[in-house]
């Protein structure tokens, strides 16, 4: 029975009485229903896709810096290839890296462990969700190698370009792209239902709503946002696929369709999606900051309320992506107001984290560095977003490199910094070993500094009027002069990518050489640290009971500075 096997089955033989039996490799690693193993599957798939996405970024940045020259490991970049590269870089980094790692991997690993139960409520659905996700990965990879190459119409897939093969010139690629995205949505719908139900129903006895760790709240709210926003796009994806292959005209203006409809269908999902990936990263930051500042989270409830506010508001702002895309100018006023309103809960969330540091006892281990970097860098992404949310300013900035730099200052902290923070923090729990802190810090600085060197210049280029998705700017007399800025950004990117190998080495070397972590290396309060690392099947010998909130650090009248949730007072 596949259910009874998973990571580190050893040491948990008699966990509520399954007799232990040696499982085949296939059962143990590929067909497992254990939430921890599925989390690992999601995490490694996501990291593999991150390598592909990073390589794409390297390729098209090289093309931009040295147009028309052979790119090492790739060759000449044709315009068609360039479009396919940027399209799939964006799609991969959001749908196949940020989503699987932040939501699925951490969600699967943390929710049962943090709310104190033995598994997800529907292990088999959980497995199915990963398998569908894997198929979507395969379909996407297949789309690169089919005739005419991968889809090159931007990850937003605006028709008619995406709808008609004679426009996109990628006959099979665009259809496979749509199928891959749709499958990915189905996978995360199944996963999301699982997360939400688990967190709602399976909490350990004694755990009230305000005793749930923030990261669990965040992943659950993110899953709900995803569920509520993706519906129209699933319908839209079906319509687009039929336009591509079955000769319908949903988005074809010459036969009574409307391309703007797709833009609305897409962004009605596309904007909440930003918060779907943001919230888990924020939650991870909250956990890490409280642990390493040895400090109670400042105003737990305020964080929750601001999150709810963000979630609701995020459904009312989507058309700020379309200000000059031909929507009625009067609509722009409404969406400007809502967009600027959403800056308030997000700002407050950041204030809360900064306030949490006050009066702390801050230790700067690698996870803490990542978490602090998340706040510092995300602030830049947040404030530059105001320029784009304000309709008047967006007239100039829309679709320039300013936009590009802005959302990389949001998505990089989310998808890269947030993930590294989470991985370095929970690595001891996942594998029972400590990562090398020195290598971790080298990797940290080697990533953060080049990252800023890549994207600060791109803000400047955007202000200078350079538009996105153009494979060679030397054609444009007003833009050719900035070539050396592009070279600088590209070189920084290469340096940053090289430093990632430090992490990969550290990750795998620590599996062997790392010193044993023990159950609670960070002296943390939350439940996952109360079982052995890595947790066996069933997570606990007997499931814990909760007596207090997750952030009781420095509680007066105790000699240790922390107070685990499961310790009776």
């Amino acid at each position, binding site marked *: 029975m596949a259910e009874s096997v998973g990571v580190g089955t050893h040491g948990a033989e008699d966990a509520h009485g399954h007799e232990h039996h040696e499982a085949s490799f296939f059962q143990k690693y590929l067909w497992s229903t254990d939430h921890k193993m599925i989390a690992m599957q999601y995490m490694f798939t996501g990291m593999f896709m991150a390598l592909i996405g990073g390589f794409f970024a390297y390729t098209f940045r090289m093309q931009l810096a040295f147009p028309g020259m052979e790119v090492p490991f790739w060759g000449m970049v044709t315009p068609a290839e360039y479009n396919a590269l940027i399209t799939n870089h964006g799609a991969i980094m959001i749908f196949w890296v940020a989503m699987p790692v932040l939501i699925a991997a951490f969600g699967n690993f943390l929710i049962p462990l943090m709310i104190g139960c033995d598994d997800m409520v529907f292990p088999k659905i959980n497995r199915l969700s990963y398998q569908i996700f894997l198929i979507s990965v395969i379909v996407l990879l297949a789309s690169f190698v089919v005739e005419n190459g991968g889809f090159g119409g931007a990850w937003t897939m605006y028709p008619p370009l995406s709808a008609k093969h004679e426009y996109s010139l990628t006959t099979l690629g665009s259809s496979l792209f749509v199928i891959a995205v749709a499958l990915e949505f189905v996978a995360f719908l199944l996963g999301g239902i699982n997360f939400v139900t688990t967190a709602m129903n399976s909490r350990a006895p004694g755990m009230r709503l305000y005793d749930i760790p923030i990261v669990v709240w965040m992943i659950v709210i993110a899953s709900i946002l995803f569920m*509520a926003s993706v519906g129209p796009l699933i319908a839209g994806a079906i319509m687009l696929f039929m336009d591509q292959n079955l000769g319908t005209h949903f988005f074809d203006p010459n036969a009574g369709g409307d391309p703007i409809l797709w833009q*609305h269908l897409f962004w009605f999902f596309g904007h909440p999606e930003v918060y779907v990936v943001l919230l888990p990263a924020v939650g991870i930051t909250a956990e890490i900051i409280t642990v390493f500042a040895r400090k109670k989270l400042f105003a737990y409830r305020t964080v929750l309320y601001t999150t709810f506010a963000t979630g609701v508001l995020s459904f009312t702002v989507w058309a700020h992506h379309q200000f000059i895309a031909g929507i009625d100018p*009067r609509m722009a006023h409404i969406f400007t107001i809502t967009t600027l309103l959403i800056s308030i809960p997000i700002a407050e969330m950041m204030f809360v984290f900064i306030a949490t540091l006050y009066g702390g006892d801050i230790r700067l281990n690698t996870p803490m560095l990542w978490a602090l970097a998340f706040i510092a860098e995300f602030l830049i992404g947040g404030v530059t977003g105001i320029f784009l949310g304000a309709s008047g300013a967006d007239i100039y900035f829309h679709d320039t490199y300013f936009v590009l730099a802005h959302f990389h200052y949001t998505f990089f902290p989310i998808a890269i910094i947030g993930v590294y923070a989470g991985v370095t923090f929970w690595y001891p729990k996942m594998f029972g070993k400590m990562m090398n802190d020195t290598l971790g810090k080298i990797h940290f600085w080697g990533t953060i500094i080049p990252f800023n060197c890549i994207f600060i210049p791109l803000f400047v280029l955007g202000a200078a009027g350079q538009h996105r998705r153009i494979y060679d700017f030397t054609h444009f007399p007003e833009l050719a002069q900035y070539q050396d800025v592009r070279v600088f950004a590209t070189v920084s990117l290469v340096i940053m990518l090289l430093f990632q190998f430090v992490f990969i080495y550290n990750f795998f070397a620590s599996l062997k050489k790392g010193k044993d972590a023990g159950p609670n290396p960070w002296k943390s309060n939350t439940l996952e640290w109360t079982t052995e690392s890595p947790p066996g099947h069933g997570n606990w010998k007997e499931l814990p009971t909760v007596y207090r909130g997750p952030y009781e650090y420095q509680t007066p009248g105790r000699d240790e500075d922390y107070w685990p949730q499961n310790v009776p007072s």
Partner: protein
Amino acid sequence: MSDSAAAAHAHHDDSHYWKIWAILCALLVVSVIGPLFEIRVITLITAFGVAIVKAYMVAKNFMHLNIEKQYVIYLLLTMLVFVFLFFAAVAPDVMKWEGDNWVKPYVAQESSAPAHH
């Protein structure tokens, strides 16, 4: 799995559901008869107004939302609100033929279907 729903079902016998079903069928008749008058208002009321009533009755009595936890109702309503929000914000662009500083030159749907000629 005994739960609130199970407990509350006790005082329902099957005839209750047959009654609901009979009402639904009657409503169905109304919703097909109404439009035959070819009067727009009556069509709208009978077709869509009745549809809403039918949906309400099915949800209340067959899906047992009447005895389900309140938050489920709010959950489903929230989803509906999002759908209406979507409609309200998209209609000005997709449904209208012209707006501030833009027009769609009217493309009548010449259809390959015989209904036209």
